[in-house]
């Protein structure tokens, strides 16, 4: 396959960026999209040029590190896959492929296609956990959990934290990411005691990190590599509003 790849190149956050165009002559349909970039990068390095920087690690769609917008779609044209699991068979010979970084105010650009998604970590720090001191856990089978709730929690917990939902949302909203974690933990009896402070804290953090509001457009669900549904956002809204209306929420730790 012959392709033209247009990539956003930007040396660092302080410099201006621009699109650079590269011809790729020898792509194979069985290559992954990132392997195609690898091959291009090998050529660039041999020419003494800096390779195109992009994030990736596991290359099997689970670590959530890869993060490109390909032809206007976060994680590329196929649904429910990450960029690393996008294969060149999804493109045609002669295609022009435009590759951009995830764009959001809360995801400052670092270099080329690499962005800083640490805001997502800070949201988790604001309550995306169950406070159980190591060693204090009760016998695992002492609290049965209905298969329905356990499966639903697992649907939400499947989130890989890639931030594609933010990248695809016209408002750069992180609602789907936050909702998935809130639903995962709030659905389980183990997460019950911290239900209210969790959702209040995470929502507040999400707002202060500079993510936009949810317009319920559904773009996030459409690009989510794990197909996490927006109904979890509604669940979070419900949790949030009921917690907020209680007025007095007791936090577990000061």
């Amino acid at each position, binding site marked *: 396959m012959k392709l033209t790849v247009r990539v956003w190149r930007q040396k660092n956050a302080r410099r201006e960026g621009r699109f650079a165009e590269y011809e790729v002559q020898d792509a194979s349909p069985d290559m992954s999209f990132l392997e195609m970039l690898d091959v291009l990068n090998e050529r660039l390095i041999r020419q003494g040029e800096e390779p195109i920087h992009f994030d990736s690690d596991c290359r099997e769609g689970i670590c959530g590190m890869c993060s490109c917008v390909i032809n206007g779609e976060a994680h590329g044209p196929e649904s429910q896959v990450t960029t690393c699991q996008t294969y060149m068979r999804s493109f045609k010979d002669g295609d022009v492929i435009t590759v951009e970084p995830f764009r959001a105010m809360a995801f400052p650009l670092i270099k080329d296609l690499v962005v800083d998604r640490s805001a997502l970590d800070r949201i988790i720090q604001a309550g995306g956990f169950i406070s159980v001191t190591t060693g204090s856990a009760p016998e695992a089978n002492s609290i049965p959990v*209905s298969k329905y709730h356990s499966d639903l929690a697992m649907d939400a917990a499947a989130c890989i934290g890639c931030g594609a939902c933010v990248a695809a949302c016209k408002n750069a909203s992180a609602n789907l990411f936050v909702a998935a974690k809130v639903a995962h933990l709030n659905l389980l009896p183990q997460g019950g005691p911290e239900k209210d402070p969790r959702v209040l804290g995470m929502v507040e953090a999400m707002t202060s990190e500079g993510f936009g509001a949810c317009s319920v457009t559904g773009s996030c669900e459409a690009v989510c590599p794990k197909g996490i549904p927006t109904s979890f956002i509604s669940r979070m809204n419900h949790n949030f509003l009921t917690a907020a209306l209680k007025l007095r929420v007791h936090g577990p730790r000061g």
Partner: protein
Amino acid sequence: MKLNANIPAGPLTQKWTTHKHEIRLVNPANKRKYDIIVVGTGLAGASAAATLGELGYNVKSFCVQDSARRAHSVAAQGGINAAKNYRNDGDNVYRLFYDTLKGGDFRAREANVYRLAEVSVNVIDQATAQGVPFAREYSGYLATRSFGGAQVSRTFYARGQTGQQLLLGAYQALMAQVSAGTVKVFPRSEMLELIVVNGHAKGIVVRDLIGGKISSVMADAVVLATGGYSNVFHLTTSGGASNVTALWRAHRQGALFANPCFTQIHPTCIPVSGDYQSKLTLMSESLRNDGRVWVPKNGGDKRPADQVPDNERDYYLERMYPAYGNLVPRDIASRAAKRVCDEGRGVGPGGRGVFLDFRDAIKRFGEDVVRERYGNLFEMYHEITNENAYKTPMRIYPAVHYAMGGLWVDYNLMSNLPGLFVVGEANFSDHGANRLGASALMQGLSDGYFILPYTIGNYLAQNQVKRPSTDVSEAKRAEQAVTERLNKLLSIPGKRTPADFHKHLGRILWDHCGMARTEAGLQQAKQEIAALREEFWRNVIVPGSHDDLNMALERAGRVADFLEMGELLCLDALERRESCGCHFRTEFQTPEGECLRNDAEYAYVAAWEFGGDGKPAVLHKEPLVYEEAHMAQRSYK
């Protein structure tokens, strides 16, 4: 050097309990005076950092990825073992201990393995309380499944994403500690040197990968949880960032590297499709619960799988190992696959593949049940190969997966360098010559949650060497060495890319130090690696600078260390003149082609000391003494 494993006295079943009573504790008020560095945020690193933070220590946690949640533990699919005996099928701590020891072909330290089996049950309790959504029965109680190398059902799982869910549990615990102020996480930071002061590990040199700043971080103890080194083989199931640099730098500073030749080849991976390939994808071993492995009886049979009648199929694992069938341990399944492919009966392009067939399972349970159990794996298979495994069998082939070897540690998980602790895959201790499926998650979390947090206190309470400042000459020298090395990599006017060297190294190792190893092949590999390393330092090309994000430079540094480590791997394989577990020397096999162990001469841990640049490594032996378990010839027939 005298290796002291510090195994507590007393009966096997009492060692850990006694040890916990006897080791020294740090007063709660004093804990906050101690700084601890934890490098790596996988299952072992994140769980250790979170637990140490909870205890009140000041923890600094480093990872190369953009977030602690990306560590490659996230990719583990199948499950985690624990001796809960929820199925009432006769499981207990002793059985898990024995299965693990036997699975490792009696090359692991008995006391460590017993402790691992003992705390495995706590790990499940802890993870469940953290909200890890393990699979459940309709009753609401936890479900389990079977895994290779065991005749009981003791593997807990969260769909095909057990590693992800357990890692998120540990990561969330870590984030809770960050918000409590006890842990500070430094993402996109790479440890490039270990700082040793007065013989104690007291700090690391770190490169901030974004700004390129090189700085020393000092602490009272250093914990390495940097995972395995299997990426030395280039094409593996590991993540792109997995590397040996942290371990290798520690090794160069005096830490012993144990059993480097024990690298596991996983039997169920998607076969290689082309030269551009960047990694191999694992299909969880759990698939062997319901999938049947076969090749055509006759070589050169090019018919599509569904047209090969049953009597012309060779379900070779069921034929050769009737007791365990498709659930034999990984090393055995891998070698069997290699053998049938070497006989010319392999399937798929290049003939390097065997079928993993779900036809019978679908017939028995229906497609829906199979979909519920393995849906995400089938999807992943489809994404990569564009084939529908519900209709045609999967094609699989062994690939390098896990490193049982690692830095040598004693019973307290401390290396021979005082103050340097090594946990998870990065240490050598629990899996011997072969790891059983679903045991890596168990070990990483046991080390991090339940073992290291106790044993590190024993070192700190004795506190022989105080935390030095970053101005000490050892730190300055280490920083300078790191800077010089980076400058050198950037200044070589070469032609070959770091990835190209990596690929070349991987090919040498796979050909000569992979599933079958010979004396001559290993000798040749050693020479080739030495020559490749020499070429690397004059012919590598690394563009850009070191004061900016520079992934080519990161890769080059890691490949440089792999080029040194690879040679040690071959040396260890050469010196171990026996076959055991994953280490298969063709000269030493039974008439049926199984491993022929030599307990009289090789029942030891090979712990290698760095001999200096250009000098051979020095071998130290820790004899393996089995007080309770009987060293038997492994049989899964």
